[in-house]
């Protein structure tokens, strides 16, 4: 259903679509699966809650306390970090390094500088 701001203010509940958002609404807010032009994933009261993928293909997990953990991070040099504070770095050339984010990413950047 095409939703308007007035409908959202009137606490629309159901599957709604607008020019910039499509998803499941409860009481006028995104609750459930939804997508915008920049984010796709799980929402609670219009805010990310659960897994989200962004338009940069980065993935985060947000818990009920609004704490967000990055799970897939695109680094400035094209490398990809997979994991939270511990995981695996997949470099552009295909090489991989396993360990903590600090060891694999931060220290490596410092060294290269």
């Amino acid at each position, binding site marked *: 259903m095409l939703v308007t701001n007035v409908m959202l203010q009137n606490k629309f509940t159901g599957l709604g679509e607008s020019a910039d958002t499509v998803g499941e609404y409860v009481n006028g807010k995104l609750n459930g699966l939804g997508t915008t032009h920049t984010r796709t*994933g799980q929402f609670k009261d219009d805010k990310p809650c659960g897994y989200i993928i962004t338009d940069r293909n980065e993935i985060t997990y947000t818990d009920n306390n609004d704490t967000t953990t990055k799970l897939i991070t695109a680094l400035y040099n094209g490398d990809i970090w997979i994991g939270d504070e511990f995981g*695996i770095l997949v470099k552009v050339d295909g090489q991989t390094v396993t360990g903590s984010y600090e060891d694999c990413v931060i220290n490596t950047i410092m060294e290269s500088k």
Partner: protein
Amino acid sequence: MKTHSNYYASQRTYAGHHDIDENEHGLGFYEVTMQGKCAGTFVNNKVHGRAAKTWIQGETYVGQYNNNIKEGHGVHTWASGAYFVGQFENNMPQGYGVLTTVHDGVKFIGRVVNYWPIEGKWYTSDNIEIEDPRDVGIYHDGCVYPSEGVKINAVGETVVTKDNVITTTEKNFITTMQDHYNGKRVSYHWGDWIKWYEGGFRYGRYHGNGHLEYHNGWTHTGVFAFGHEIFHSTYTSIATTNPETRSTHRRLDRNYCMVYDMMISYYHKFVDRQPVIVEFGIGRGDHLIHLRQLFPDAIIIAVDKLSPTSEPTNELEAQQIRDLKIAAQISGVEFYFDTDCYDKQSIYNIVSTHGDFDFAIHDATHTTTAWSKLDTIREVLSGPYGILITEEICCNNDQNDESSIDWHQVELALETGWRIWDLRPVSNVKQTNSLIGVYMNNRFDGSELNMLEITDVSN
């Protein structure tokens, strides 16, 4: 919002943006009943770019898609609590990533193919490296073996073997029993809300009489059908409680009982008066006794073209007449002997006495075209919800004849509103003519057995 509805399949509903040709294009959301839902970006009716998808079994995927296929980076979670973050290809985890297993959160970091660890390192849930995963009871393929014959893989799928034969496979809490109809399902991993089930199974689901216990203490002892607790008797529940008779054995063996159970559930939804149950083809009467237990308050009518006093013309008829003499002793049944079920006036006579039929079972001698002679019975089904079942529809009587099914007749029957289930794949024994047809004036769902329904003869 656009709804694509194939009556026999799940219903897909889409909401979102379209292109000029009305293709799903841009931001969108779809839901498929009994399967799951998805929000994401669409290109030419396909999920392309990024999406978040959930399945009713409890799995979730959030990540990149390429033409409906998971490809790129993403995170997939299983209902067991296991999850994989990393690279996907061919719709599955494939490449590098972090696989958090169902085994106390032990992680595998490295290269995986479809959640099987291939090359990498193992870590505890607090990121302490494990030199050899067997030290914590996990084999290199991510499986643990908690007891003899039980194998649980990294994401919680369970395989139970006995004497080197797989008896049970379990994925996302769906248990499939192999080769037998009674079994026990035990929850082997955390996250499961069902503690254990013991009882009848059909087609991989709780079906028949059983006992189910949840971790929170809720229990259900009684009747199950298609995986759910139900609160009325079913064909299967009664047939498996009582000593097996020739007629119930045949219907259990061929799994016709599942179609009966499905239709009985519709019957219970709609019939709210003393029902009229009719069986055409009486045999020895075992089935009448069974029907009486199923429908205790019903008027039960039994119709046969022969009578106990008929003169047989061949050996088959002689046997049928001997059977009828036994059946005629059954009390509480309205018998109509010497009555042809294909004769219009005979049917009208029964209806004028007892009213329209609520549940009619055609079990007279089967021929490939018998279904086409049942128009009068279809006419006198009660309202929109009267049910007519005919077994071995469009088949001849030879259960060993590889060409016993007349597919042209199947096509014709489908065109005239019959719904037909092919139970050969789930029959306990090889019987080539295990088709069963159902007619109801009102269209009914039938999704309980949609994988076995014939909808297109060309397939």
